[in-house]
């Protein structure tokens, strides 16, 4: 019976996590930035087809476990049709609760244009918001030390 309870709980949690994966469309970035206003956070872009993303997501997952108050929002640049598989991947990398958004536009360049005109689509792509309207973008897997330093400075 205990096992059953655990299973049901696990399924419910999985269900909640799934419910949070939303289509990232034109205007979504502003929505995220408004909701996070005044709070430092990390915004990360990833994809199922990116060979370097698993390393980055696992490192971010570790960081969240070490700094539970860290605000991390992950956006997959795949398509909504792939949501169930992406959710599974996010779960495997330990970032299911953070993987909240998925690109939903036939023209990903349109979304990139809104996010950052100088982002050419390379992945992983990570933005550090300092909580004072400033952000810094980074392409590629981040060194753990750099993630640690940002978290120790910004997560109170």
């Amino acid at each position: 019976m205990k096992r059953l309870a655990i299973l049901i709980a696990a399924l419910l949690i999985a269900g909640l996590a799934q419910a949070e994966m939303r289509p990232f469309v034109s205007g979504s970035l502003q929505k995220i930035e408004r909701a996070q206003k005044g709070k430092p956070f990390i915004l990360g872009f990833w994809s199922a087809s990116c060979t370097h993303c698993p390393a980055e997501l696992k490192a971010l997952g570790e960081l969240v476990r070490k700094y539970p108050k860290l605000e991390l929002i992950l956006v997959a640049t795949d398509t909504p049709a792939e949501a169930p598989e992406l959710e599974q991947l996010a779960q495997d990398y330990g970032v299911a609760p953070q993987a909240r958004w998925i690109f939903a536009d036939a023209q990903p360049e349109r979304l990139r244009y809104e996010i950052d005109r100088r982002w050419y689509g390379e992945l992983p792509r990570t933005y550090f918001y300092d909580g004072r309207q400033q952000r810094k973008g980074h392409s590629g897997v981040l060194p753990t030390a750099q993630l640690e330093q940002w978290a120790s400075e910004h997560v109170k």
Partner: protein
Amino acid sequence: MVKTSARASVLLAALLLADTAAAHDHADHLAHDTKPKVDYAKVWLEKQQTAPRLAIAAQFDASQLWLARVIGQQIFVSHSRDAGKTFSEAVTVNRQPELISADGEARPQIAVAGQRVYLSWTQALPQPFAGHVRFSVSEDGGQTFSEPVTVNDDSRPITHRFNAMLADAGGVTLAWIDKRDGTGNPDYRGAAIYTARSTDGGRSFATNRKLADNSCECCRLGLAADSDGTPVVFWRQIFGKNVRDFALARLDEPLRRVSEDGWEIDACPHHGGALAIDNEGSRHIAWFTGAEKSPGLHYRRIDGETMSRPFHFGKLDAQSGHPQVAVVGRKVVLVWREFDGKFNHIRLMTSRDRGQTWSAPTSLARTAGAADDPLLLTDRGIPWLVWNTTADGLKRSRIAP
């Protein structure tokens, strides 16, 4: 998302309705089945199946424009005698359907030499990042095609992808990105460039040869014939620990570094370069880098040991990327894509003095929807843009001499 949630609800309902003892057994079984075990194969397969098939291949021969496009799991070839206004009925290349990569950097290739029409493509495998380089030839001017063969002689389900192809009167050369040396070797950086050549019109291929170790993993290759006909490959290479700049090599010769941006990045740029070689043997290259000191698109000419200073082009705030270069006599043409927030544009710049001075960039074509990267072809000395778009179909544009 819906599918998974629905499945979870059904499971929950089933569990809640079942009596405790039965549910207990059932739960053991289910707990085993639902253990978070990711089926990467499935993810990858679905990714391939749902990817847009916008990437086309095209080439002019002496009298017509040839076009290859992927629909579903088949590749089709047609030709046009009026430069793409109307096309012949399409002929199926692979009668047996298979998953074909045709998106962005992963592009089918067509090459025509006399009566022979060569096709190559990457068959996407269920395993993540895995593919086989496939090949088929028509010996009757595109009426019928041979049974496709796999050209990579390593048959493991790993990366053999991003095929490029070059045909000449003597045969056909394929080049691709290959992970055979890095598989099972975590210290190996990136992938390798492999090539295969056929001298009997595509009926058979010589053993695969490695051109270079440590290439970047997912950028299209540039491939052009040197003045003596030898194929020259241009690709993104990993220099040192992780600097992803460009290299160039003649077939079976050592590579040479040809860009010094110093783009150090652990990421997938999905952004290869373009190569054209003129009658004097000078190499004209165009490439993209994200390096902080020199971001964006660049052009340079290489004459023997001498390389011109990189010339930056394209608007940094318009995602300028995916360049193509063509050379006709002293004239050099560059096209690339930009996005202005509303339209995808193909921008054009020309030089009449072998790349020393350039015209101001102009817009050659635009479309409101999703689009492939541009193709730059040459028809008897006249450059043409051929561009596949969702909203406007196949766009063609003759580039005035």
